[in-house]
């Protein structure tokens, strides 16, 4: 899952560096509230531990082997902020010292594996293990599921990053300039390996380490358990640092109308009505290396065009006149939907200190 240089366009890399930087800033800000002298060696040694665990070549059921990412165990012990920083540091060292993963794609790799991985691991672990005692078997199962979900979520985000490349970045003749496969190929190709081997490797190592810690060192599991007395290493979400994330989200939403500044229609994304227009045909001919467009709209395209209508066709609801406003409204709808979904999930997370430590 370590994306090398050359697979993603520089603009994709820049956006993902910005997204990763927001995550790093937020995580560092939260950690600074703890004693800095304690945090620096803790995160450093944990990053080194994650680096070593990534080298474990685990035998998996079915006779294959796989490497774990280590993000889930880092998140369970350190909390999401600690997990984000420890895995990011391990990834930076892999890229800059061992050449695993690119430099331009370092932001993307940290965003996928450290940030998405940690947040999904934390959310799913807290939700599934909610209310269970430190030594309960449910915690081991939760750790395994959290590991499986975290790795697959990171892989899915990486697959989407790959899949949008040919759509956005191609030359005049339609040659993809970066990762060549569209979403319909990139997502299944990426997910098959992760749904089977990589996800399983992370699940096996996380569950095994949590089971070991339950017997040998249960105090290390307290910080993200949601149980009373576990605040020592927990990095509580603070509205102040979250505010910056909201500002970043709002800024991205406001920038969405920039999408309409791109001249013409995306190559190969013409609707039947656009295909029939002479003005569009001229643009197509120039973009298609002078291959003429069909004289009439192909019957198959006409037939399939009515099969599925997106809720917000072409990102602009029909009742909106301004395309910029339509873009913005679509972005707000999408963000609103995601926020509602996360609030719904948050509703089911346990409140701190509701249950007592019984391990």
């Amino acid at each position: 899952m370590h994306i090398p240089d050359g697979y993603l366009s520089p603009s994709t890399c820049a956006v993902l560096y910005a997204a990763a930087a927001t995550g790093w800033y937020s995580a560092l800000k939260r950690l600074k509230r703890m004693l800095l002298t304690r945090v620096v060696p803790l995160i450093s040694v944990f990053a080194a531990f994650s680096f070593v665990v990534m080298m474990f070549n685990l035998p998996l059921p079915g006779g294959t082997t796989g490497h774990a990412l280590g993000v889930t165990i880092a998140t369970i012990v350190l909390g999401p902020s600690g997990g984000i920083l420890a895995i990011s540091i391990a990834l930076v060292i892999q890229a800059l010292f061992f050449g695993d993963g690119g430099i331009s794609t370092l932001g993307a790799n940290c965003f996928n594996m450290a940030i998405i991985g940690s947040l999904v691991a934390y959310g799913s672990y807290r939700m599934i293990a909610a209310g269970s005692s430190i030594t309960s078997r449910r915690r081991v199962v939760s750790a395994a599921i959290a590991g499986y979900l975290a790795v697959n979520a990171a892989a899915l985000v990486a697959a989407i990053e790959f899949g949008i490349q040919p759509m956005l970045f191609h030359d005049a003749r339609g040659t993809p300039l970066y990762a060549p496969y569209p979403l319909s190929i990139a997502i299944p190709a990426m997910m098959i390996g992760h749904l089977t081997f990589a996800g399983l490797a992370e699940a096996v190592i996380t569950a095994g380490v949590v089971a070991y810690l339950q017997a040998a060192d249960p105090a290390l599991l307290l910080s993200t358990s949601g149980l009373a007395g576990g605040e020592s290493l927990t990095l509580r979400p603070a509205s102040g640092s979250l505010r910056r994330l909201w500002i970043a989200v709002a800024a991205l939403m406001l920038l969405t109308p920039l999408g309409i500044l791109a001249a013409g229609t995306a190559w190969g994304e013409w609707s039947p009505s656009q295909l029939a227009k002479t003005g569009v045909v001229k643009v197509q001919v120039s973009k298609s290396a002078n291959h003429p467009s069909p004289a009439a709209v192909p019957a198959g395209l006409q037939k399939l065009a009515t099969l599925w209508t997106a809720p917000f066709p072409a990102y602009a609801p029909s009742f909106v006149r301004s395309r910029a406003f339509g873009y913005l409204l679509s972005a707000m709808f999408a963000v609103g939907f995601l926020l509602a979904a996360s609030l719904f999930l948050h509703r089911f997370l346990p409140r701190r200190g509701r249950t007592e430590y019984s391990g």
Partner: protein
Amino acid sequence: MKRGFLESTFVGFARVVTRAMISEETARRRGLLQALDPRVRVVGLFSLVLAVTLSRKISVVVALLTVAVAIAILSRVSLFVLVKRVWLVVLGFTAVIAVPAIFVTPGDPVATFGFLTITEQGLRTAAMLILRVETAVTFTTLLILCTPWTHVLKALRAFRLPKEAIAMLAMTHRYVFLLVETASQMLESRRSRTVGILKPAAQRRMAARTAGVLLSKSIELSNEVYLAMQSRGFRGDIQILSDFRLDAWDYLGLTAFLLAGGLAVWMGR
């Protein structure tokens, strides 16, 4: 023979240590990159990586690969190491990804084999991907091979990274080798007590237990490091010595790097 968990993990550990040793040895040689200020090396090679990703023409990427080989020769980097560690490895994993694109990318047909059609666009995108990755990884590897890690870290300060981040990167690097050594000893001791072939389930338990013990040891180590830092009077204020000075050659080198990168971006539009 298929290697088990113990053997294959040992191989991984050995690779890390070998790579670090090769880097140290190459960084001590007297060559072009080694003579430049580490900040110039980092900024210069990063800008060439950026030029590789920005270029839209295969010919420009090939020209940049030639520049990379020339820098390697002038920096006394073994081409054998580059072939073995970069070019063959990258070719291996990128070709697997790029080759199907020759057939599935829509475009102008070049040749047809039964139900498979090779398109011109497919050939170009596959060649572009492989060349881009090869060239970018070569530049990154040149930086790694010719610059000691401590110098890379100091150079990163030029990018205005927080001091805490630099301190954590420095400490992590140091403890990676200590923990690799600790894990190796744990696995070695387990192997010396193992007779016969372990079943996969037993190997998984062993891996998880080793990782668990390593985690406990890491936490203990961080406590010890914390106390050692306290004993030396550390109060959270991180000081990093920056004694690099740019001379005329460094400015010349930086200008050459930026000119080459800028020219490649302009020609590869």
